[in-house]
């Protein structure tokens, strides 16, 4: 079986339970178990070769650009871990099948479990460090789902979040470390990295890389000071705890340390950090375990302690210690998984895990008692069980290290004897203490079979270690140290071995601890202990509060503040850019100033200032805006830009009219919203921005471009190339017709938005209510629709439309064009609305403005596309001359058709806005005039 298939099997298996669930919970579990068993078989099929020292590989490309390959690699270390993950995984599936309530969705649970299993297997089979990082974070995510399984419980959610934050965060650090490592080694393939020991340890970034990788390993393996998440992860269902905290998740950190042991270990930094953290964790975990009362909590802290032990062994950096670590990984996985499952059985049977409320289960649950006794004895390191063997190896290694290490190692061993005794005696000995609702009894074989098999293994491997433990541990140790050790595992090594005496001392001290427990417990209760969970939660709460404080400023929803910062940044950026470059003033001579220009400029300035000062009185402000616009139009005319002047005037008229009409829906005055100091700030900013803009404009107007500008071509080609003498128009409809095509679309869209927004106002809602409650301004003028105005606009209508047609047609050669023509026509129609009222005029409108806009865009586009049929690109123009009798000769140009599109779009946009205003006014209670003007209306109103 290829490694790829083995690695894929758990993921494939994750789909099966959901599918098999229709056939029952058993079928779902069977499907998951089948996938696991197949994968285990696959691993085993490679075992003989791996045990001989071969390395099995499989590789495919993934992201070679980043050095990430999909490469799998099975060596001794991988074999040991893969066996644990899949073997114990199989037992967990069996156990979970009978453990979970009928209410728990079995299919989903097993899917999560299989995903997690796949992620774990991926870690240990990875032949590429980046791929290992991928699977590493995947275990954080899948374990988040598993730990938070009972998501309705707050402790489940908190535990899951904490585990994700700590292990996921550590994983990010590890990623950085791995990237550094790969950079030193020149690749991320494990084979490359493992061969680069000397470069890595000589590198200046060795220490950062080591720290980052250890951060990942320590968080995952719950080493001090990151140990706190593990006990809170016990909120998970017991099968999850048994799996995650015996064989898998927490062992991933150990795996990583073992995996990189050849290149990272052996330096003083490694020893100090790893062995130090291991030793502290070993003692701290055991000490806390001694005083816990929840079965699972005791086991959790015991796990922390044992992980510390293994970390310590890896940290020592000697080959013997590394080998001992491998043995203990196997031993711990077997007895701890069994103990977790047994704790789950007791929880099920007695409905509590508090050992203060348990007791006397010896008689009620004899089978559980027997299994737990054996597993616990292994945990305490008693012979003839496998825990004893590995503990002996540990003490042996500590003895070689000498000094205070020995004392600490013995203390750790003694504590573990102490808490094991307490857990065991309080649960099974004595009499039942708490009032239990149901008399507990042993479970059916579905639940006890899995722990029983594990306990059998614990005993058998203790009795025949050279057969059951040594081959795998040796192969693994060989993969770690690069040198297959000769393990001699035996229960009896002779009386001269120091470990024996240390071991005996530890057991004695452990018994003493047990005896002294009540006194110690009082001492423990009264001594101050930092609560890691509270600290973590306070940190999270602090981060939350801080981020919300930032958001209160950065996301306050105030436009003025945001714009102030933006304008400030623009000013600062522009100023900085200018001051850091070389500048030479322009050489164009200034236009001579005359009195009229000076006066107009003064009026412009005053009108602009007045707009600002009076901006809260809306009508006045609008009038001043109109004045500004007209003066600018005058300016254009003065500077010989008649096209711009025409456009400016018509645009000004239309916008001021439309805004005047909409003002009638708004309060007369804008309420003062900003604080005086804020206004002062804005004043300074606005003045600075204005001056900056003026300076920029001056700099630009007073200079010639460094290179010949493209406008020279436009002037030269206007007639011969585009067929028009008005270069402004030929630029708009021809040279840069595509810009115009875009801009008329913008105009059309703007009208559509006005339509949609007004439509939203007219649908039921608060805005509509306000509209309905609107009372019409009594007004100052008495006449609503004065007859003279009405008559004048009627007369003006055909004239204005003629003017529009004229302006349209002359556009190509003289000032004018579709844009201005559209606006003139719009003004003529608008006047009808003003004179006779919305309702009356609206009723006489035949054409929907939507059609005009749509037609405008389509006509302009179709003109452009027409060029395709001549084999030319979009918007290529053509022109020629016609002389149809009895008319004069005239020029035709496709550009005129394009301009028609412009005309339609402009007209449509204005009319659509007007139509919506009229709808709003009618909803707002405007009385629809029954006649075009007041005189007629009065006559009709008379009876």
């Amino acid at each position, binding site marked *: 079986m290829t490694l790829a298939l083995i690695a894929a099997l758990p993921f494939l298996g994750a789909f099966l339970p959901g599918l098999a669930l229709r056939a029952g919970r058993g079928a779902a579990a069977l499907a998951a178990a089948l996938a696991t068993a197949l994968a285990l078989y696959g691993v085993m099929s490679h075992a003989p070769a791996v045990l001989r020292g071969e390395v099995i590989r499989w590789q495919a490309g993934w992201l070679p*650009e980043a050095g990430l390959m999909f490469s799998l690699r099975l060596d001794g270390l991988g074999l040991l871990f893969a066996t644990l993950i899949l073997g114990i995984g199989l037992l967990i599936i069996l156990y979970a099948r009978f453990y979970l309530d009928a209410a728990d969705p079995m299919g989903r649970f097993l899917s999560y479990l299989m995903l997690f299993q796949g992620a774990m297997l991926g870690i240990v089979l990875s032949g590429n460090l980046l791929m290992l990082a991928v699977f590493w974070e995947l275990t954080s995510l899948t374990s988040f789902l598993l730990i938070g399984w009972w998501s309705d419980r707050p402790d489940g959610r908190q535990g899951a979040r904490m585990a994700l934050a700590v292990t996921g965060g550590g994983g990010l650090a590890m990623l950085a470390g791995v990237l550094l490592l790969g950079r030193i080694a020149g690749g991320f393939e494990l084979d490359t990295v493992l061969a680069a020991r000397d470069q890595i340890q000589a590198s200046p970034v060795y220490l950062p890389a080591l720290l980052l990788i250890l951060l990942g390993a320590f968080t995952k393996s719950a080493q001090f000071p990151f140990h706190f998440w593990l006990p809170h992860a016990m909120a998970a269902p017991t099968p999850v705890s048994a799996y995650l905290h015996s064989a898998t998740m927490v062992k991933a950190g150990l795996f990583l340390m073992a995996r990189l042991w050849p290149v990272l270990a052996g330096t003083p930094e490694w020893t100090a950090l790893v062995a130090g953290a291991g030793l502290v964790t070993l003692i701290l975990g055991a000490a806390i375990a001694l005083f816990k009362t929840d079965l699972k909590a005791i086991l959790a802290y015991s796990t922390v302690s044992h992980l510390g032990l293994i970390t310590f062994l890896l940290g020592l950096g000697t080959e013997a210690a590394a080998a001992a670590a491998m043995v203990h990984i196997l031993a711990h996985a077997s007895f701890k998984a069994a103990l977790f499952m047994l704790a789950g059985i007791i929880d099920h049977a007695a409905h509590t895990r508090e050992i203060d409320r348990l007791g006397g289960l010896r008689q009620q649950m004899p089978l559980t008692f027997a299994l737990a006794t054996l597993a616990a004895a292994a945990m305490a390191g008693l012979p003839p069980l496998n825990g004893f063997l590995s503990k002996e190896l540990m003490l042996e290694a500590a003895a070689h290290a000498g000094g205070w290490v020995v004392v600490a190692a013995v203390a750790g061993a003694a504590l573990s004897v102490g808490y094991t005794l307490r857990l065991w005696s309080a649960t099974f000995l004595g009499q039942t203490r708490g009032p239990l609702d149901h008399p507990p009894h042993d479970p059916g074989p579905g639940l006890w079979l899995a722990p029983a098999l594990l306990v059998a293994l614990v005993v058998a491997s203790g009795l025949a270690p050279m057969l059951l433990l040594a081959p795998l541990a040796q192969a693994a140790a060989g993969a770690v140290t690069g040198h297959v050790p000769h393990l001699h595992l035996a229960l009896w090594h002779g009386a001269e071995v120091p470990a024996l005496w240390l071991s005996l001392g530890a057991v004695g001290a452990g018994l003493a601890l047990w005896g002294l427990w009540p006194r110690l417990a009082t001492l423990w209760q009264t001594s101050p202990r930092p609560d890691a969970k509270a600290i973590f939660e306070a940190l999270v709460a602090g981060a939350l509060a801080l981020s919300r404080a930032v958001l209160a400023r950065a996301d306050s929803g105030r436009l003025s503040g945001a714009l102030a910062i933006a304008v400030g940044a623009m000013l600062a950026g522009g100023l900085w850019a200018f001051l850091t470059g070389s500048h030479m003033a322009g050489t164009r001579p200034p236009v001579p100033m005359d009195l009229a220009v000076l006066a107009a400029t003064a009026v412009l300035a005053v009108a602009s200032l007045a707009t600002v000062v009076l901006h809260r009185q809306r009508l006045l402000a609008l009038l001043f805006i109109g004045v500004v616009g007209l003066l600018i139009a005058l300016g254009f005319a003065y500077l010989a830009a008649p096209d711009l002047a025409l456009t400016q005037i018509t645009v000004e008229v239309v916008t001021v009219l439309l805004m005047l009409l909409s003002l009638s829906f708004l309060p007369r005055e804008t309420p003062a919203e900003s604080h005086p100091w804020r206004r002062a700030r804005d004043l300074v900013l606005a003045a600075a921005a204005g001056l900056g803009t003026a300076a920029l404009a001056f700099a630009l107007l007073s200079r010639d471009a460094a290179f010949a500008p493209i406008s020279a071509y436009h002037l030269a080609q206007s007639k011969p190339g585009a067929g028009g003498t008005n270069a402004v128009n030929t630029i708009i409809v021809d040279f840069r017709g595509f810009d115009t095509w875009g801009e008329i679309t913008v105009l059309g869209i703007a009208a559509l938005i006005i339509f949609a927004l007004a439509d939203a106002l007219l649908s039921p809602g608060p805005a509509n209510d306000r509209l309905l409650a609107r009372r019409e301004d009594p007004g100052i003028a008495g006449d609503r629709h004065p007859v003279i105005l009405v008559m004048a606009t009627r007369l003006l209508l055909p004239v204005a439309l003629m003017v529009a047609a004229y302006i349209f047609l002359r556009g190509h050669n003289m000032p004018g064009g579709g844009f201005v023509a559209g606006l003139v026509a719009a003004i003529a129609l608008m006047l009808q609305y003003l004179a006779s009222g919305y309702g009356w005029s609206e009723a006489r409108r035949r054409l929907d403005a939507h059609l005009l806009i749509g037609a405008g865009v389509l006509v302009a586009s179709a003109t452009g596309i027409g060029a395709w049929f001549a084999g030319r690109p979009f918007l290529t123009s053509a022109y020629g001359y016609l002389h149809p009798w009895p008319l004069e000769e005239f020029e035709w140009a496709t550009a005129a058709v394009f301009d028609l599109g412009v005309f339609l779009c402009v007209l449509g946009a204005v009319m659509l806005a007007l139509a919506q205003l009229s709808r709003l006014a009618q909803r707002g209670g405007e009385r629809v005039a029954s006649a075009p003007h007041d005189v007629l209306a009065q006559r009709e109103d008379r009876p």
Partner: protein
Amino acid sequence: MSHLVIAPILLPAVLAGLILLVARGIALQRLIALAGAAGFLALALLLAGRGGAPVAYHLGNWPAPFGIVLIADGLSVLMLLLLAVVALPVLVYTMASGWDARGRHFHALFLFLLAGLAGAFLTADAFNLFVFFELLLIASYGLMVHGGGAGRLRAGIQYVGFNLVGSTLFLFALATIYAVTGTLNMADLAQKWPLLPPGDQALARVAAVLLLMVFAVKGALVPLQFWLPGTYAAAPGPVAALFAIMTKVGAYAALRLGWLVFDAGPTAGMWAELLQPAALATLALGAVGVLGSRDLPRQAAFAAIGSMGLVFLCVAAATPGATVAALYYLIHSTLAGAALFLVADLAGRRGASGPVAALFMASAIAVAGLPPLSGFLGKILLLQALEAQAPLIWSAVLLASFLTILGFALTGSARFWKARGTAPTAAEPLALAATGLLLAGLVAMTLLAGPLTLWLKGVAEGLADPAPYIAATAPQSGG
């Protein structure tokens, strides 16, 4: 003469005009819009099939630099394809959820927005870029306030107000560029920019800074990001999803003009100098916002800001390797961000049902950049590309990831795990499928990361060597 280059702009615009002309009923509008989005995808695929060599299209048959030129090169086609791939599922979602019927003109505006974005990606003329920025701004504003409501209108004012300031600045920048160089054609600019005489350099620098700020407004870079969170959170869910690509327009323009024009002569290295601190601040703000936001849409909005920080970090580095990372992450964050906005909308409308929770988990993983989705690969590419300044940038990137994970874990567990009073209703299957389709895109990006980066490498090389782009502009076929 092949008109394929301009077709992605014309097709949606003409269909939008057609909707205005003939389609009053929503059914016909939907049909036309779907045809438009599907046709757009087909056009993008056709363009991609032509290979990465730049192809120019001279509008009005005027020679460059006097007329307007469009150029489809590797980067343009990539952006078009990304737009098409996002637009189609989002459109389907809009129809399935009934969002399009909550106001007027959704489909016309949607198609106009496609046209505007396509124009921005294709044009090789600086002023024409401004026109398309306007087009996409106005169309997006219409979509943003679609359906109305006080909150949405208020946010809409922020959006359009802030962006109009950006447009004004764009005009200032263009005026300065034209006054100094006398040209607006990008390839022409690229050739003239390094030759600017010393006396013009200060103004040239001003123009470059202002232009960068325009793109920073679009790309929501700190301190010009204020418009984004409120806008994206208040916009209808599918519109926010489509907007996931709007911020990328800023990144696109910065990449395009940075490589082609502005990293030379008087402004060599200038953008990078400004972009890097801004990108770091953006990244930080995005992460802080994800952690501190109280609701999913706002969280998704801040995630969008954070992703822009990452993209701009790579843009600032201005190496081909970093550009590959920028593009990979850009594609990823567009798809992931769009999916997250759709999920937020689903959860808001239909409640936290099982399928929605699963989609949330997947899109949160993607947005936070965790495996097994492409964000993690993007991060690996990015970290390696930015190795030169590892201590600062790596810590910032990883810390931001951490805060993002924390933020999503907090809201996710509170929103989807905690039992709520009201039971969720079943989400529309088609809406779920559309969201799933975006996520499937991420899966494809993950599995095909190798070939994809190879393609992106070609795109990045096309940027690094502008000669073919400039050459494509110059010759004029026909006459």
